[in-house]
């Protein structure tokens, strides 16, 4: 990698150089044997060559793309993705748009009504608790608000349902409903059906294109818009998720609520009175009795289900996080937070990530440094011993490499703990007082010691392979010219081994920065890394968005360091082998 010698120095002309030469020629185009300009003919040959090379690496490239790059990109994308709020509560988000979050007033009853219908469908699809979990990351307590409200929504719908069913038992009949709502031979409201399919698909994250055995009637959709919308949603979920027959299932409570609202809507009155399709008599009877229908105060009903709905803070959170993409996770990962008033720093007692990032970087550097200090003499020894001895020693270096990580880490626990081997020996020879045994584990010292041990082979191996290629004659020549041992080493040998240090450092540093098992086991509270939090958010708290944001920052930090390293040391000065 070090010298940028082109192949032509060895083998003569290459197509690349030939093109350049052809360019340089002033006296007209140079022609190839078949009469085409040499440049074009060479370009064609080169292109064929490149295509062949590309085809050869294509399987590997595709493999890496599909199994490595794509999943990582997908995971990192979650750090900004926030579609769940809008997908779960589309109408609420739209209605909430007009609410001024600066006021202490609650959103209008319309917002609460939109929330009722959104949340009802979400609860039927069992998606509302996921949204609760998502918003709970931003405001404590929302999780249970959604869960408990999800249980109580039926009650609100039943206020209407009971009135209808008391009036006429036909309202309890699934087939009566189906006959009324279904288009049958008449015109179907195709747009509405498509829109509802799209809404349910967004809600459940699954396509909803299957046959549902139902199409909303265009007539009924125009006179009972809310009811048709809810019934269509009901039909889609019943047919495609529950896998039941729509005509045999009594509609949700929310459909009754929607019907109640449609009947109470003065602007729809004329339409219903003029309707003559299936269920017309019952509808008109219900319309005549419209005064018996309850006038539900959705705001009060929600606050009765859970007090938190009366807290403007909940609504502010909902509004702040209603965009499809959010900076929220990234802000959280640098101890900031997104609030309705803009970006603010998190409360002091919750700030942790910047500290962890700093600690991870500093400790990884410390580990790299101690690996250099310990690894260099060993590699030097290995490179200068006779091959037979060196090979035996090499096995000793590699042996820990083949031992389980957990075993090695646990061994350090036995050695380092306060009742451990090292402390026992120190107490026994009288160096340390029994009452004041050294604390060498469950802190930063423990992490640095254990990780230096684990990562040492990654330093020794590149160092060794570089040192192997330094001709002993160099040092001998230096000495014969009068250099002392130290000067010969420092001025001649060491500069030649720097590429090995570079390679070892990059390997060790990048491995160290992402380690989490060892710090988790021996790091205590002060020796844990940012990767421990990433692992926690992936597997315990399930806050994958935050984990992805933390991971993206870590990745960016590594790339920036790599770039800096390239600028200062030069990546050409890295050697993994002879």
């Amino acid at each position, binding site marked *: 990698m070090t010298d940028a010698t082109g192949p032509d120095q060895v083998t003569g002309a290459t197509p690349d150089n030939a093109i350049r030469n052809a360019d340089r020629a002033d006296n007209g185009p140079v022609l190839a044997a078949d009469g085409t300009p040499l440049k074009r003919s060479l370009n064609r040959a080169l292109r064929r060559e490149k295509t062949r090379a590309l085809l050869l690496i294509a399987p590997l490239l595709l493999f890496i793309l599909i199994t490595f790059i794509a999943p990582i990109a997908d995971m990192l994308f979650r750090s900004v993705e926030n579609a769940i709020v809008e997908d779960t509560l589309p109408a609420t988000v739209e209605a909430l748009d007009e609410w001024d979050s600066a006021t202490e007033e609650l959103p209008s009853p319309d917002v609460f009504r939109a929330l009722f219908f959104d949340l009802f469908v979400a609860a039927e699809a069992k998606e509302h608790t996921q949204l609760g979990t998502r918003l709970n990351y931003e405001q404590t307590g929302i999780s249970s608000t959604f869960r408990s409200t999800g249980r109580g929504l039926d009650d609100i719908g039943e206020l209407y349902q009971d009135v209808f069913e008391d009036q006429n038992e036909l309202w309890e009949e699934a087939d009566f409903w189906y006959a009324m709502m279904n288009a049958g031979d008449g015109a179907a409201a195709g747009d509405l059906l498509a829109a509802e399919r799209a809404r349910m698909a967004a809600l459940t994250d699954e396509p909803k294109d299957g046959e549902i055995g139902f199409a909303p009637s265009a007539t009924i959709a125009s006179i009972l818009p809310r009811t048709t919308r809810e019934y269509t949603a009901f039909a889609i979920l019943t047919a495609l998720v529950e896998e039941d027959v729509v005509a045999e299932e009594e509609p949700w409570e929310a459909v009754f609520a929607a019907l109640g609202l449609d009947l109470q809507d003065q602007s729809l009155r004329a339409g219903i009175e003029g309707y003559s399709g299936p269920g017309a008599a019952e509808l008109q009877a219900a319309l005549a009795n419209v005064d018996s229908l309850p006038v539900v105060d959705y705001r009060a009903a929600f606050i009765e289900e859970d007090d938190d709905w009366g807290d403007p803070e909940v609504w502010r959170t909902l509004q702040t996080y209603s965009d499809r993409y959010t900076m929220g996770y990234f802000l959280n990962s640098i101890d900031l937070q997104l609030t309705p008033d803009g970006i603010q720093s998190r409360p002091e007692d919750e700030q942790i990530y910047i500290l962890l990032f700093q600690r991870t970087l500093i400790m990884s550097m410390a580990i790299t440094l101690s690996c250099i200090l310990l690894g260099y003499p060993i590699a030097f020894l290995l490179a200068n011993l006779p091959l037979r001895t060196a090979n035996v020693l090499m096995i000793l270096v590699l042996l820990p490499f083949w031992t389980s990580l957990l075993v090695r880490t646990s061994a350090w626990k036995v050695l380092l703990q306060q009742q451990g081997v090292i402390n026992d020996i120190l107490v026994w020879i009288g160096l340390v007082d029994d009452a004041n045994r050294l604390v060498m584990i469950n802190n930063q010292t423990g992490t640095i010691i254990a990780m230096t041990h684990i990562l040492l082979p990654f330093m020794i191996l590149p160092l060794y392979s570089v040192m192997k290629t330094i001709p002993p004659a160099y040092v001998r020549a230096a000495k014969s010219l009068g250099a002392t041992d130290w000067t010969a080493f420092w001025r001649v040998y060491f500069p030649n081994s720097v590429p090995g240090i570079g390679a070892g450092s990059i390997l060790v540093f990048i491995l160290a920065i992402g380690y989490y098992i060892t710090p988790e086991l021996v790091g205590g509270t*002060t020796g844990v890394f940012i990767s421990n939090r990433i692992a926690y958010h992936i*597997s315990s708290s399930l*806050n994958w968005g935050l984990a992805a944001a933390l991971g993206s920052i870590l990745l960016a930090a590594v790339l920036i360091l790599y770039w800096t390293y390239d600028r200062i040391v030069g990546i050409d000065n890295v050697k993994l082998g002879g």
Partner: protein
Amino acid sequence: MKLTTSLLATTALAVSAGGAFAGGHMADEMTLVSWGGAYQESQQRAYVEPYLEMNPGVTAVWDSSSNEAVAKLRAMAEAGNVTWDVVDVVASDAIRLCDEGLAMEIDHDEMLAQGDDGSDASDDFGDLLVSDCFIPQIVYSTTAGYRSDLLPEGAPKPDSICAFFDTETYPGQRSLERRPINNMEWALYCDGVAKEDIYDVLETEEGQDRAFAKLDTIKDSVVWWSAGADTPQLLADGEVIMGTTYNGRLFSVIEEQNQPVEMLWDMQVFDLDGWIIPADLPEDRLARAMDFVRFATDTQRLADQAKYISYGPARASSAPLVGQHADLGIEMAPHMPTDPANATNTLLYNYEWWADYRDDLDAKFQAWLAQ
């Protein structure tokens, strides 16, 4: 609407219960997920071996991934390829899996066996059915143990969890779990908050500060553990004089390894562990999973598990059947967390409360630890 459909479903299930689940079309292989170690071994001996004996031709494969079950199940569901059939999780994870729609909802009375006293499953399990998706299996507790031989001279044997906060009488290191759950409750309790007010206090900013202030008093003498095996090891090595962990782990330190450790049952926190079935399994695998779970959670099987590990069976009807340890031959009842003598002062893990406050308090707890 709910009533009629569930009635219909009930009759349909009742009719099919004898046929579809018992005979019908069932997969021949099932993948069971558990925690590994002695616990998985107890399940293997109490449930799986007898089940395979009854059903020759069926094979069961274990995957010891329960500690990451939620994350893995979520990843599997997103990839559309769930390879697990029955998964052992703690109750809080079951609630989250249910919330996320990753676990199947269970009709306990229909899908599970009746108690041997004829009681319905839902009555037999009682309050332990903390989630619609959860099939309880054992009651375990996070509790404390101490080294009886390392107590300072003249110090009385600790009989309260507050001994953890009394560094004057009991100097030395103690081990606590590296998470806010349980520790915050104990801290407030030992700071004088009545047991029934703990969560009300912990909900407030001041209450949380108060708990942290109490923990501050012992922060320098705590070794924080993250794996259940840590405390038994630390106790055995004499690294700590007292520590918390799961009661089964302490049982094995005391009875199987004969270490000079004693139980401190005071304020033990009950928690549940049980099965869930992943949502949307193919029909044949679902039938097999249901058949297995129905067998593995009947009265006798749950009582059998207590022969191998000291966790309490989740069914009330199993309690009288708990006998002796299969290898040690000692009576298991006195080692159960639910034994009346051990359960004089207990706390039940508040799932709903922690589902709300976990993210927030965890951030605070980690920040507090890192300071």
